[in-house]
Every structure is written in structure tokens, then in C-alpha cells.
């Protein structure tokens, strides 16, 4: 099988999840090629060889400097039509998801998304994806070529295999409509704030808190437990808590020994960032919140009652 893996870069490095998908493709065997699209990225291309790419196609163009999806669809369309691939694989990110879906429409090629595994059975590529809040697993296939696959973030670990890649540049026309959206201000990594990635205990707050002032409850419990404070995307987007504390698909991926989710419904965007936690305790007033499906202990109740009391009990216990 001939694979093409879309490798994303950010500030001079290849993105970890896309190297994970590249490593996975390499483990499936066949012809493994990667594609890197950006501005001043040619020097990064050889790195992909270490993770299993035999060839890296590079389009180095100043017009691809901003991480915007549409010109990347143009470039991929040209590469795929020109070279032909059985499958094109993406690691889900804000950018890659938009690129993958745009390419699906452009090529009229089937896209399976949110995949948590890829296998080759009887020479056929099969994807696995959880559905309905991960309550059922589906095996999915394709009836088109190429097969487009978008892998859930954090699914595959990058694995170096000591290989080397041939780097080949290509050209592509970029369409006017693809270049119509422009970056006015690009995010740069925020470094301030406490690091939640190394914490053994995390207490996280979500929209169920009701307002930014109630983060004090979360902070108090975190302090009692000796842990760090985290937040969901919804409350970060709403400006209640800084982005550096965000756990989830577009935030940090954490795996503390204990994760206490306070007022968090537990949508997939959040789950992928914390499902590796040792013990998950959830407090939420909505009995149907998806988080109860994967919390080790789920408590249906009023967090405003429970959390202060719990902080007090933990403090008393620790003082004893």
C-alpha cells in the first residue's frame, strides 16, 4: 500500500502527533511518503525520515507561511493527482482537520475521522473509531481512492526507526479563494502560568462552575490536594481562565494520577486531553454528562455544595 502522511510543522519543529501517525504508517508497511507544506520548512523534511518516511514531498512557499488550511488543500490535490496514493493520513489538529475535509470534497474521496487505530486486513485498510461518546466501536472502510483518514489526536506515539528520507520539492498553483483568508495575528506559545503537564493531581473546572469567580472553589480544592488547576476549552474561550491551563484537543494532554473534573460535561474535545489519567473523579449536576461514562467515580450533585466540603475534609485529613 502506498501511504502519504500529512506532516504538520510549528515554529521550526515537526508536530508530534503527525510523527506518531507517520510511525504507525511505517509499522503497517508499504511505501511510506510524507508531505510537508509551509514556508522555510525544507530543512525540517529530513527529520521525517527518522520516523519512517522513505520520501518527503516539500512545498516551500511564503504563501504557506500562515497555518491556514485552504492553500494546503490545493497543494495536496496536485500532489495526490500527480503521484497517486492508496491512502492519505492526517493527525487531527485544528489545521489538519480542515485540510483533510477540504481535500475530501476536492477529490471526492472518502474521509473517516476520529480514528483511534488503523490496521491492514487482507490487504485492505481498516480504521477503528469510537462512536456515541465512545460507547461503541466501529470498524470503518473506504470505497474510494485515495482513502483519507483523520486520526484522533494523541493516538499514536512517534517511534524513531533510524531511516532516511529522500527529499523532493514540488510546485503547485494555489487558488485565489484559497488565499482569500489571511492571518492578521498568529498565536505564539504561551509560556507563563503553572505547568499542568507534570502535576500528579489536577483539579479542572468547566462551564458548570457558572462563572469565573467560582474558579476559587477549584483552586481551593487543588491547593488542598496539592495539585494544579486546569480548565476546559469552553471556559478558556469565554475568558474565565488562561489558555495555558487548558486541557483537551486544542490544549494540553495530561496524565496525572488523579484528575478531578468539576462542572465538566466531558465532551470528546476534553476527553482526549485527560483520558490517560490514573483515576478520574467527576462532579456534575447533569446525570447525562458524557464524563460519567469514563469517570472512575461520578457524583451527580451541586458542585457549590460538594467542592468546598471536600476541600475541608481533605485539609482535615491531611492535618490529622
Amino acid at each position: 500500500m502506498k501511504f502519504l502522511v500529512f506532516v504538520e510543522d510549528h515554529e521550526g519543529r515537526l508536530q508530534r502527533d503527525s510523527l506518531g501517525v507517520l510511525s504507525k504508517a511505517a509499522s503497517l508497511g508499504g511505501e511510506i511518503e510524507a508531505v510537508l507544506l509551509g514556508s522555510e520548512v525544507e530543512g525540517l523534511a529530513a527529520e521525517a525520515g527518522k520516523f519512517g518516511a522513505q520520501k518527503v514531498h516539500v512545498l516551500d512557499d511564503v504563501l504557506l507561511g500562515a497555518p491556514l488550511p485552504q492553500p494546503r488543500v490545493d497543494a495536496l490535490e496536485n500532489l495526490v493527482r500527480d503521484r497517486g496514493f492508496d491512502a492519505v493520513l492526517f493527525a487531527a489538529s485544528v489545521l489538519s482537520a480542515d485540510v483533510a475535509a477540504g481535500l475530501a470534497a476536492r477529490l471526492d474521496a472518502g474521509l473517516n475521522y476520529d480514528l483511534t487505530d488503523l490496521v491492514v486486513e487482507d490487504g485492505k485498510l481498516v480504521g477503528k473509531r469510537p462512536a456515541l461518546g465512545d460507547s461503541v466501536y466501529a470498524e470503518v472502510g473506504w470505497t474510494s481512492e485515495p482513502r483519507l483518514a483523520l486520526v484522533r489526536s494523541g493516538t499514536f506515539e512517534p517511534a524513531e526507526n533510524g531511516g532516511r528520507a529522500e527529499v523532493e520539492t514540488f510546485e503547485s498553483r494555489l487558488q485565489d479563494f484559497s488565499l482569500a483568508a489571511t492571518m492578521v495575528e498568529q498565536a505564539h506559545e504561551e509560556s507563563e502560568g503553572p505547568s499542568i503537564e507534570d502535576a500528579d493531581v489536577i483539579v479542572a473546572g468547566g462551564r458548570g462552575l457558572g462563572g469565573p469567580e467560582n474558579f476559587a472553589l477549584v483552586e481551593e480544592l487543588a491547593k488542598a490536594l496539592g495539585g494544579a488547576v486546569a480548565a476546559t476549552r469552553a471556559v478558556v474561550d469565554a475568558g474565565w481562565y488562561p489558555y495555558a491551563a487548558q486541557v483537551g484537543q486544542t490544549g494540553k494532554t495530561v496524565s496525572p494520577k488523579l484528575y478531578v473534573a468539576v462542572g465538566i460535561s466531558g465532551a470528546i474535545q476534553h476527553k482526549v486531553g485527560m483520558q490517560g489519567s490514573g483515576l478520574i473523579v467527576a462532579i456534575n449536576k447533569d446525570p447525562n454528562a458524557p464524563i460519567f461514562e469514563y469517570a472512575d467515580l461520578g457524583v451527580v450533585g451541586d458542585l457549590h455544595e460538594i467542592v468546598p466540603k471536600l476541600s475541608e475534609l481533605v485539609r482535615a485529613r491531611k492535618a490529622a
Partner: protein
Amino acid sequence: MKIAVCAKYVPEATAARRIDPQTKRLDRSGEGVLNPFDVNAVEEALKLRDAGADAEVVIVSLGPERALEAMRRALAMGADRLVLVADEAAAGSDLVATSRILAAALERESPDLVLFGQQANDADGAVLWAAVADRLQRPLISQVAELTLVDGKVRGKRQTEYGYDVIEAPLPAVIAVSDAINEPRYPSLKGIMGAKKKPQETLSLTDLGVSAEEAGEAGSLTTVEALSDPPERGDTVKLEDDGTAAEKILEFLQERKAL
């Protein structure tokens, strides 16, 4: 200007959800609602109109005939008009087929702005907008947490893995909003009463010039081969607070040696 909001009819969140083992599709026979994530998109359209954009807000949906009633919630909130593509041949459409049908319905409306919600509540899909934008050949901004219209341009602040970007695009454009972008209004009694009288149009695939072969399972390029139970996650305990929840959590943490 004209703002189209793409909205999906999804099973009610409280309903037990299941996949029909025969068709391997989500069982949609129960009660349905307007996808909660799309309510944020409706609200954002109404906010733009309230802020002075002289706009007509049109809801565009693909779903079964009985979706009409649930979709009226958007009209009750204040949207002006509803277009529902209801055709049995469209059932089971995947991303490629859905984007084809929706793009055809949007082309017929030719709106200045197309809005999508963050994701579908039922299929966890969060990519449709990019496929639709490509078919319409319009600029796209996704994951937008703040949206403004200035001089024929739309400006969106989006969250990525690295923080916040600000992106600008000329109209017409396609925007997918985050569910944190606003707090949707509740329909007023007057709004609910008036919703039924607002224009509601049901279209077939033929009306859109989409053939049955291009839609539904025939027009889809992905398949569901098999279904299985998820891997066991060990025992999960769920309890209702009877006033002793804090004590019970403490006991649990002690038992599991998490303190």
C-alpha cells in the same frame, strides 16, 4: 446581506442512543432536537443582525421531514426562514455526500455568510464546514470564538493548539463557531407563536439538481464494516449526592490511595 446557518437535527441528548445493527447507522427513530452546537451559530447570526447588519437569517438543514418541528426553534429564536432538504435518498450520507447536498442548497441561497456550529452532537463530526467551503470555493475560518463584521470583511479569533489566531476573510465566507462564542437566547413566547408562520420550505434532491446516486449510501465513499463493544475501563461508580457526597469522595480517594 444574507446569513445562512447550517443546522442539524440530532437525537435528544437524554435519549438512549444506539446504532441499528442492520443498517449500521445511528437509530434516529426517537425524538430529535436542533443540534445544541448549532444553536450557538444561530445566536451568532442573530447577534450580527442585532448589531446592525441588515441581514436575513436563513436556516439550512439536511434531515428527515419530521426535523421541521425541531428546527423551528431557530425560527422562534429569531431566524427569518427555514430551508430543509428532506429526501429519503439522502439518508446515510457521509461527509462527501452531505457536503455535496448542503453546498447545493447553499448555492441556491447564495448567502454572504455561512455559519456552522462547533460539531454535531450525534456523530462527533467536526469537519463538515471545510468540505462545504471547498465546494463553494469560499474562504473559511473555523473554531471561531469571536466574530466581527467590518467593511465587507469578516474577522474571526480562533483557538488552535498554540493559542489564539486572528484571521480575516472577505465576504462571502464560511465560518464555524465555537460553542463558547455566545450564550444563546431562549425563544420568547411570542417567538414560539410566530415561528410557525415564518416561511418554511422543504426541498428534494431533485430540486437541488443532485442525483440519488450522488447522495445517501450510494453517494458515500466510507463504510461501516462492523460494530463492537468498547474496551473495558474497569468499574465505574456513579452516585447521586444525598448530602454525603464529599465524604464518599474522600473515602474513595483513601481506598484508591490517591491522597
